């Protein structure tokens, strides 16, 4: 089946260690993580990835007061992506732009805040904000983008747990192929660090990470002493177009999405299933028309949990074990787990490899867990190679959702 080619023409992002692709990439190559200890309601100090983009760059103070943090992150990322794409936004038919934002969840932050608010008024619901519903509907982050930009095409969020960033991109690609829109803003966002419930939930699961002295070392996928995740906020929105449209307007084409798959473990609420993960990667490769050895970088999902990292390594060894030039890395060691933004941000951190032929490492591996040893795992130092042309990006989430997205350097 002939499929319309879909390309990336712009990127906008905020991560705990960078508010532009350049800043973020530089920190990935220089080994600079940025995780801080923050005060969490009811929990004391916990490590978290905090973004410091300027929310007033694209929003008024009133918009900030009325809207949500997820909306703010989404707006910043989307506006940066639009600017990066060079699209003549003023004169573009805004009814032909779609907004597809992946989230793990939405509404927790705002609900927790309101319950806390009315607790100070004896739980009198007359003090419950009238802003609650527009703040907590699941489409809020995507909707805030449309209000801020004047986009009148379709918008919605895609709930896909920690696979949401990939899922946003996949949805946009499909909508472009269907001809529903001519320009798409897609990716994922997270405001999860403002929800104590999320931290407490992970802690109760035994999945919240710690380190005795350095918050930047809490997130340490594949390290023998790893003990859990770091929750982060962040956002990454891509501008996507059909190749013919991007070419017609002379756009700078950053990369092409050539394959993808989403599948389900159908086995456990939280424990990953390496067989289904392998299946997901193999299915994506099939869509891309590639063999495992054609992949230059596999960016792992690995979140720094004792179990999850091992399961993914099993899956990767099964698919790529015989691929001598497929390198493996991880981004969560730098920025923690950015939830809905994770897949989108982690892919973005690798895209500059198409230009500089360098693979960023996974850091904080002081002693590699033997069960996570993989040939070509790039640890602690970046690796220069002859050429990077194909990246496979893994993102897996609870309820057994798996996603694999394959992106190729655009060479015509």
């Amino acid at each position, binding site marked *: 089946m002939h499929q319309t080619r879909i390309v990336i023409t712009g990127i906008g992002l905020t991560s705990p260690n960078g508010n532009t692709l350049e800043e973020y990439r530089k920190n990935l190559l220089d080994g600079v993580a940025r995780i801080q200890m923050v005060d969490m309601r009811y929990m004391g100090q916990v490590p978290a990835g905090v973004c410091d983009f300027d929310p007033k760059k694209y929003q*008024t*103070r*009133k918009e900030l*007061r*009325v809207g949500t943090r997820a909306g703010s992150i989404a707006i910043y990322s989307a506006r940066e992506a639009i600017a990066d794409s060079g699209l003549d936004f003023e004169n573009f038919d805004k009814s032909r732009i779609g907004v597809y934002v992946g989230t793990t969840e939405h509404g927790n932050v705002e609900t927790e805040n309101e319950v806390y608010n009315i607790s100070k*008024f004896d739980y009198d619901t*007359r*003090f419950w*904000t*009238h*802003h609650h519903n527009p703040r907590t509907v699941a489409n809020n982050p995507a909707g805030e983008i449309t209000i801020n930009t004047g986009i009148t095409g379709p918008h919605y969020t895609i709930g896909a747990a920690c696979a949401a960033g990939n899922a946003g991109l996949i949805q946009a690609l499909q909508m472009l192929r269907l001809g529903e829109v001519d320009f798409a803003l897609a990716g994922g966002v997270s405001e999860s660090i403002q929800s104590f419930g999320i931290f407490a939930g992970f802690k109760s699961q035994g999945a919240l990470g710690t380190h005795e002295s350095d918050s930047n070392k809490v997130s340490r996928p594949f390290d023998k002493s790893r003990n859990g995740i770091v929750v982060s906020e962040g956002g990454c929105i891509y501008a996507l177009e059909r190749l013919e449209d991007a070419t017609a307007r002379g756009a700078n084409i950053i990369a092409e999405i050539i394959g993808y798959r989403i599948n389900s473990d159908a086995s456990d609420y939280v424990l990953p299933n390496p067989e289904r993960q392998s299946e997901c990667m193999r299915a994506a490769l099939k869509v891309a028309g590639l063999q495992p050895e054609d992949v230059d970088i596999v960016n792992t999902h690995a979140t720094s949990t004792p179990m999850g990292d091992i399961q993914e390594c099993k899956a990767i060894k099964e698919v790529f074990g015989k691929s001598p030039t497929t390198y493996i890395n991880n981004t969560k060691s730098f920025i923690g787990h950015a939830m809905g933004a994770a897949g989108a941000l982690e892919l973005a951190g690798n895209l500059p490899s198409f230009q500089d032929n360098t693979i960023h490492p996974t850091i904080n591996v002081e002693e590699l867990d033997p069960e996570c040893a993989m040939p070509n795992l790039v640890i602690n130092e970046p690796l220069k190679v002859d050429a990077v042309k194909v990246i496979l990006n893994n993102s897996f989430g609870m309820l057994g959702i798996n996603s694999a997205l394959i992106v190729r350097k655009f060479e015509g």
Partner: protein
Amino acid sequence: MTEDQVKQIVIDIITEIAPDEDTSDLKPEVNLREQMDLDSMDFLDIVMELRKQHNIEVPEEDYPKLASLDSCADYLTPKFNAK
């Protein structure tokens, strides 16, 4: 509490609710919505802040009485003084 003090309280609340607006030169007799970009959700914010900060209830049928600073002062000053 005087009417002028009540007007200042309302202006202070509006400054919180509409932080991008210039509230330094509001005409007391002109409708607030003609002088600033305030929508119905913003008016509900004014009602909420009166409740939270000053323990003053404004029933829904009285919302039109908050239309201008003068009408706010007329309506709210007795409520402030009855507390």
